């Protein structure tokens, strides 16, 4: 067999190149479902497998829910942005909010879930300050 350091799913088909798709929404909980559906649709178009699609749905929901809660807590009025793009061996979804540094109650659980569902999670500074950018990556 091939080298053992290959990713487990290295034999999987590359993703169709698609996106970027950009969604901007008012930081309200009722729009998080819309963001989940958009991200799922792009991931499906890219050819991500059914099992991973469910992970995209939940992880994007967590990232957007976190962005909304951060924005509400900080009184930030900027729109939340979700950018989805796929190509080659990866699907990348970035969620950005306009809030500054502001810990929220469910954040630890949200981060735990995202880490358990995506291949890579990075939380860095966003447009409004620390913690405002969540980048989720899936690899095939």
């Amino acid at each position, binding site marked *: 067999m091939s080298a053992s350091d290959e990713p487990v799913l290295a034999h999987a088909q590359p993703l169709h190149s698609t996106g970027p798709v950009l969604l901007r929404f008012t930081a309200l*909980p*009722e729009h*998080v*479902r819309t963001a*989940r559906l958009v991200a799922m649709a792009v991931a499906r178009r890219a050819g991500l497998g059914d099992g991973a699609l*469910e992970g995209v*749905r*939940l992880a994007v*929901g*967590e990232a*957007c*829910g976190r962005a*909304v*809660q951060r924005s509400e807590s900080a009184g930030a009025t900027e729109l939340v942005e979700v950018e989805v793009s796929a190509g080659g061996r990866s699907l990348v979804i970035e969620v950005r909010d306009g809030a500054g540094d502001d810990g929220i*109650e*469910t954040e630890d*659980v*949200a981060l*735990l*879930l995202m880490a*358990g*569902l995506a291949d890579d999670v990075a939380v860095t500074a966003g447009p409004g300050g620390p913690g405002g950018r969540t980048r989720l990556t899936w690899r095939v």
Partner: protein
Amino acid sequence: MDLSVTSREQGGRTVVEVGGEIDVYTAPVLRERLNDLVGEGRHHLIIDMEKVDFLDSTGLGVLVGGLKRVRSHDGSLHLVCTQEKILKVFRITGLTKVFPIHPSVEEAVTASSGGAGA
């Protein structure tokens, strides 16, 4: 409808059947219903999640809150769930150790009542 919540009595327990999506938008509705039930003196809850299509961290927070609330009245909260995608959420967060999860309402009622039945 995003979320449905109905309740009934079965075997001396209150079975709460939840359907749809439990997320950052709908979770407050579930929280309110659970608070109401506990306020009415229903301290032994079985939450049937077989018709739940989606569960996020805010939904988990509501379930944990419900568990704390019934326990403060010496009550109990059991879950019914066989869906892998929902069970995965409990596993990733380590909450399978916190909630008794059963494959059917009947088994949950038996376990909740302290019976030794299968």
